[in-house]
């Protein structure tokens, strides 16, 4: 059976070996990278921030008390890394600087429409125009599918505040994407 995150951290603390950390990277890399891409809308930047987030987390392991799960703690660090990045770049709302969207592959329901290049561009523009806090709210709940309380814990705000941010983010996105949604 695979070792749990807590067991891997304990093993690292005991032996100083880097192997448990590498397993933690493998385990959490896809979700952390996805979160960071959805926040910064650029793969290259998301790569850099993912690396930074893991290194920050491992440097901070001595202070990790295990009160929250490692995953929660890591994702909180990832979000802080994004906010620091926005702070450094003074680019919020940001402009999409990623790869050009692929060509449309057909028509159909909203899922099909989402792969249309025009809509993809509109989604990225709409997400980029949200404030970082509102973007995080929609990314965490709609895309990462966290419960509102979990999202609030990650963001360090109350559940009520998170509900409000979700509401506001959805309202703004629907205003901007309304033409593409069959609401």
């Amino acid at each position, binding site marked *: 059976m695979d070792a749990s995150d807590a067991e891997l951290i304990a093993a690292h603390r005991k032996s*100083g070996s*880097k192997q448990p950390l*590498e397993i933690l*990277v*493998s385990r959490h890399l*896809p979700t952390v*990278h*996805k979160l960071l*891409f*959805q926040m910064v809308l650029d*793969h290259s930047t*998301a*790569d850099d921030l*993912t*690396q930074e987030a*893991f*290194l*920050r987390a*491992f*440097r*901070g*392991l*001595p*202070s990790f008390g295990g009160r929250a799960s490692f995953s929660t703690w890591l994702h909180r660090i990832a979000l802080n890394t994004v906010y620091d990045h926005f702070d450094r770049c*003074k680019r919020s709302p940001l402009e999409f600087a990623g790869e050009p969207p692929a060509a449309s592959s057909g028509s159909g*329901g*909203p*899922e*099909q*429409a*989402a*792969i249309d290049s025009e*809509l*993809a561009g509109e*989604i*990225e523009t709409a997400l980029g125009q949200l404030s970082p*806090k509102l973007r995080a709210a*929609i990314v965490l*709940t*709609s*895309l990462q*599918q966290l*419960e*509102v309380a979990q999202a609030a814990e990650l963001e360090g*705000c*109350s*559940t*009520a*505040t998170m*509900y*409000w941010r*979700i*509401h*506001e983010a*959805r309202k703004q*996105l*629907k205003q901007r*994407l309304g033409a593409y*949604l069959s*609401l």
Partner: protein
Amino acid sequence: MSEQEYSLHERDDLDRVLAAWAARNAADGEQLLRLENRIHAALDAEQSPELEEAAIQRRQAARWRRIAIVSLSSAAVLLVALLASWLTRSTPAPGARPNEFARISNDDVARKRVLLAEMEHLFDGRVEWIAESADNRRGADNDIRVGLVEGSSRDTRAARPLVVRLVVIRRTSEERQWRPVRVTDVVLRDEQYVQLPPQADDPAQLSLWSYVLPDGMVALDTDLDLPGDVSLEADSSNLQEAGVPLKVFSTHDGDAEYEVYQTVRLLDDQVG
């Protein structure tokens, strides 16, 4: 919006469109493997406990470098007049209604504008926030702290400036009139997170985050931790109308009753 009004189970077209977009943009296995190898290599480069500790120190130092908290004493000469205006601000007469202690007058707004403009001038446009506190329990000098961005000036001009006043008041059963215990004014900008750490002579901690809605209502997250004989921990998230004091916390300690009020006003609004 209340919890009852919104449920994440009510996923609609917006969620489905976003999910399809996210799936289409997810990194593939090869990209992730490359990144994983890159992170392993970076880990190799700094893995010893000594380096870990050094990295933590660097991280903390960088964090504090970004926001330099400047004591007013370093600029006392230039700010005497402004400080005096803070010290002599109008305070409600004893017996006033509790929310009156948190009211921000038009004069206060005008003074904050001047304060912000002077500080911006003094610190070459690097001012992130200004916090003024007066604590009657300490009997010490009032305190002004300024959060600065290190380096060149920051482009914050687009964000609307606000002032938030947080007032702790107290009364006893013997003396029924409310009296202010602590008053803190923070000038900040829309969507800015402000964190005031404790200091040697002031153990209070305060963090604030604000968001101004298009209709002028303001969402405020406030977390005040006031250690002392009576420990107050007021953690609140509210959507409130500019200029209207709001009670965010109340508690009792034996004979004494405490309440915390907060008010927010936009500094770029026309004052009458």
